């Protein structure tokens, strides 16, 4: 009997506080499950064997680290709610003659019980779901499916060790709190008188101003590179502003409402507004954190989903054709030599040897170099380029000079240019606004027209900086003089012949053709002692699995972390509301005695919980709307410019998020109401 006294006491303690412990235990189970699945996937042999699987596994390994750290913080946080609620009980035990050592034993048994439930249930759920997760990953990687079931012991061990450590830390923290408190303090810890919060107008105003600035920055930025630089500044501003507005702004708004006597002294507003002041004072920081968490989850989820869904787009931007041959030459004359004809026919021959025909041929000459564009002049000087300032980044361009003939042929146009005139095309949403443009010290070209499209060559997709294409009538002349001037300062100009074609066959055949072509080109050895004719062969097929594993890994992780963070956010809300329910109990009791109907109480509760719950979601939505232009520009850096897709994905993410949110809101408001009204019935 005596032997089982402490375990029994512990178990009763958990059972009697079901409303508090159930979500906590569920959280523990969920975290164990998530962590196990991630460590399972990063150890899975099946994944490792698939092409690109290892990239994915290293991303997932990173993710399991994030989940581990997050579990620690999050479980600590939720546990602190539990302890605060139970301090009174512990105080009573203490007064009844249980020493702190006895209390510690009860707590030890409680922790053991919770850890046992969480670990066993979490691992079982994890093992069951891990196979599904694996199948999902294999599907993302487009590998072949196997149905064998494995349980890697190292993943189990990792999970057990991590969570054992977390539970021990939580227990130690609880013991510390119990140890520091005296019995009377424990008994009273819940009812400490609250001063009415004062509105801090200065902070509220500062919050509004900073938020306005951040929004302005987000909306007004036009090019991706500045977006990248300003993104973090804007994020920090938004975070600061959100905290200020939730903490000081909300109280200020309530105070303004209270001053409007006609508004305030109405049945619907009276109780709600006055309680909201206190609620926001206590929860302002928490709600702001939740709001920021929500925004981050949404941004992360929509960006990763977008990247994954848009993988083909990105691939096409990086590899404009199934197979591309990029030939670097040392002399403009080589661009019209017979070597080029030889490569062309070699390509056709290799393709037809495999029963294929090159289609959709991309064939043009280009001279490329980085340039610093200022006052209608492209500075090609190496030293200027190396000493430019960070904020002048938007003035650095990748310059491509292309013959007008090639432009006309590729785009099916019929443009004509007089000498000294040029057509211009820019990428990555950057604009060039001057009428003339000069290359180095040459006579300036007159920009006859800004054209709206040109075939990409993959270089643009690889670089952060935007590209500027100049289509000139006398290519050889322009380029020769450029190479001459550059030679004195170290040659930055590369002459290229770009040749690409599509194939209508499977990835395997494409890879085979690419390999054969590479070998054949090696044998041709077109470079000589003093001239360079170096051809590089690239195929999209080879890159596809690599890209999918990278984007797919990010996608998977984005979704998984998104789920975990949403879970965390709403659970924190749940606990906040529940613990406030206990505090509000006696208030609603009084109101009922004074003549408030149950219906009015329910209405007031609903409006308060609704505000507390949906304020962060709504704010997150507004943040997201203003962040949208920034995200759009940043994704453009990943060659993803499909704005419709981005909007669609963002909206869907938001809706799913909101749905989940509403669900938890309903559960919470029901639990809250039962706490507020339930105790009253017992008291009578």
């Amino acid at each position: 009997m005596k032997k089982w006294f402490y375990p029994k006491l512990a178990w009763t303690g958990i059972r009697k506080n079901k409303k508090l412990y159930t979500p906590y235990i569920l959280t523990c189970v969920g975290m164990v499950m998530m962590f196990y699945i991630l460590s399972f996937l990063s150890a899975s042999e099946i994944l490792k064997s698939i092409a690109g699987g290892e990239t994915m596994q290293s991303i997932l390994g990173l993710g399991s680290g994030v989940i581990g750290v997050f579990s620690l913080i999050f479980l600590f946080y939720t546990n602190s709610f539990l302890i605060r609620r139970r301090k009174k009980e512990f105080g009573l035990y203490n007064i009844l003659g249980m020493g702190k050592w006895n209390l510690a034993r009860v707590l030890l048994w409680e922790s053991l019980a919770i850890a046992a439930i969480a670990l066993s249930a979490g691992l079982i759920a994890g093992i069951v779901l891990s196979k599904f997760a694996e199948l999902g990953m294999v599907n993302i990687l487009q590998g072949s499916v196997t149905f064998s079931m494995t349980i890697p012991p190292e993943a189990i061990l990792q999970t057990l060790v991590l969570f054992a450590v977390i539970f021990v830390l939580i227990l130690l923290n609880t013991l510390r709190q119990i140890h520091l408190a005296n019995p009377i303090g424990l008994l009273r810890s819940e009812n400490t008188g609250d001063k009415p919060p004062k509105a801090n107008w200065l902070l509220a105003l500062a919050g509004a101003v900073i938020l306005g600035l951040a929004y302005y920055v987000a909306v007004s930025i036009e090019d991706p590179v500045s977006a990248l630089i300003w993104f973090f500044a804007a994020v920090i501003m938004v975070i600061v502003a959100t905290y200020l507005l939730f903490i000081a702004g909300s109280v200020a708004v309530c105070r303004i409402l209270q001053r409007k006597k006609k508004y305030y002294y109405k049945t619907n507003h009276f109780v709600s507004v006055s309680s909201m002041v206190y609620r926001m004072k206590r929860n302002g920081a928490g709600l702001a954190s939740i709001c920021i968490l929500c925004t981050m989850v949404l941004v992360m989820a929509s960006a990763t989903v977008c990247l994954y869904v848009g993988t083909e787009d990105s691939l096409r931007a990086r590899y404009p054709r199934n197979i591309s041959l990029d030939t670097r030459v040392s002399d403009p004359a080589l661009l019209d030599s017979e070597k080029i004809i030889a490569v062309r026919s070699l390509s056709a021959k290799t393709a037809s040897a495999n029963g294929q025909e090159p289609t959709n041929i991309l064939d043009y000459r280009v001279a490329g170099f980085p340039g610093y564009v200022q006052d209608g002049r492209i500075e090609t000087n190496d030293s200027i380029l190396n000493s430019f300032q960070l904020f002048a980044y938007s003035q650095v361009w990748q310059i491509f000079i292309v013959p007008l003939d090639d432009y006309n042929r590729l785009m099916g146009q019929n443009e004509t240019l007089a000498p000294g005139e040029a057509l211009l095309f820019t990428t990555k949403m950057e604009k060039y606004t001057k009428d003339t443009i000069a290359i180095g010290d040459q006579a300036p070209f007159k920009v006859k027209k800004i054209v709206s499209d040109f075939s990409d060559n993959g270089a643009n997709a690889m670089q952060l900086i935007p590209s500027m294409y100049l289509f000139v009538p006398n290519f050889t002349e322009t380029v020769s003089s450029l190479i001459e001037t550059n030679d004195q300062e170290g040659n930055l100009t590369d002459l290229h012949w770009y040749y690409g074609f599509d194939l209508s066959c499977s990835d395997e055949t494409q890879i085979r053709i690419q390999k054969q072509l590479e070998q054949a080109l090696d044998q041709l050895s077109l470079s000589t002692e003093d001239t360079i004719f170096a051809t590089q062969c690239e195929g999209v097929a080879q890159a596809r699995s690599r890209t999918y594993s990278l984007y797919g890994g990010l996608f998977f992780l984005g979704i998984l972390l998104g789920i975990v963070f949403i879970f965390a956010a709403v659970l924190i809300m749940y606990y906040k509301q529940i613990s406030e329910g206990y505090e509000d109990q006696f208030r609603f009791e009084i109101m009922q005695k004074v003549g408030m109907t149950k219906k009015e109480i329910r209405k007031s509760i609903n409006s308060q919980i609704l505000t507390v719950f949906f304020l962060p979601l709504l704010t997150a939505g507004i943040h997201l709307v203003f962040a949208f232009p920034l995200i759009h520009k940043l994704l453009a850096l990943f060659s993803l410019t499909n704005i419709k897709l981005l909007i669609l994905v963002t909206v869907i993410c938001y809706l799913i998020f909101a749905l989940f949110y509403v669900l938890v809101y309903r559960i919470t408001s029901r639990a809250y109401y039962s706490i507020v009204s339930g105790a009253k019935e017992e008291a009578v």
Partner: protein
Amino acid sequence: MRILEVNGLKKVYTTRFGGNKVEALRHVSFSVEEGEYVAIMGESGSGKTTLLNILAALDKPTGGTVLLDGKDLSKIKESGLAAFRRDHLGFVFQDFNLLDTFSLEDNIYLPLVLAGKPFAEMKQRLAPIAEQLGISDILRKYPYEVSGGQKQRTAVARALVTNPRLILADEPTGALDSKATDELLQLFSEINRVGQTLLMVTHSVKAASHAGRVLFIKDGEVFHQLYRGNSTNEELYQKISDTLTMLATGGDKR
């Protein structure tokens, strides 16, 4: 005119486990006339609080009727009860039951706001009451900033502001020191003098000695009652003490 009429009131509680029955009120009958000041006395567990809860329509009796202004409380629908309470009854509690999120002023306004009265009228009603109770200067303060006596006076103001037919006070002096107790009892006598009907539940002899009539409850029944007649507070105090002694030392009916 009769304000309150209680006939054969009975309340039986069934404990949650086992089904043991506890009879809190066996057979309680009494009535209160308009303008009266009645104190109900009894020891802990004698059924005082149960009685008050039933009178306040916060609890339902097992048997018997309560007529307030000739209206049977059990006939009022659940949805109308809160409004009825608000319009006809005022409450003063032992632990004040002020809301700490409201200033004293807003606490007093609460029943009026719930009744949907316009702000101008609320203000008009509060001014004379606050003056009478001596809390005009502290209306802007919050409950945690003022003394127990001031809190209780605020609670009285909240009870008075709706012009209720009957004020129910549950151990109103229970949490007050002797000075604040004297002040509050003085106040009750004053508002009774201008015509307010009061029903107070207490086990303080001193509090009861201010009433016009004292009912004694024992074992769920009205056991005895004392009228003030022409006695002073001190004389009534003595009579109550004697009665209590008799009750305690075996004045058993049976």
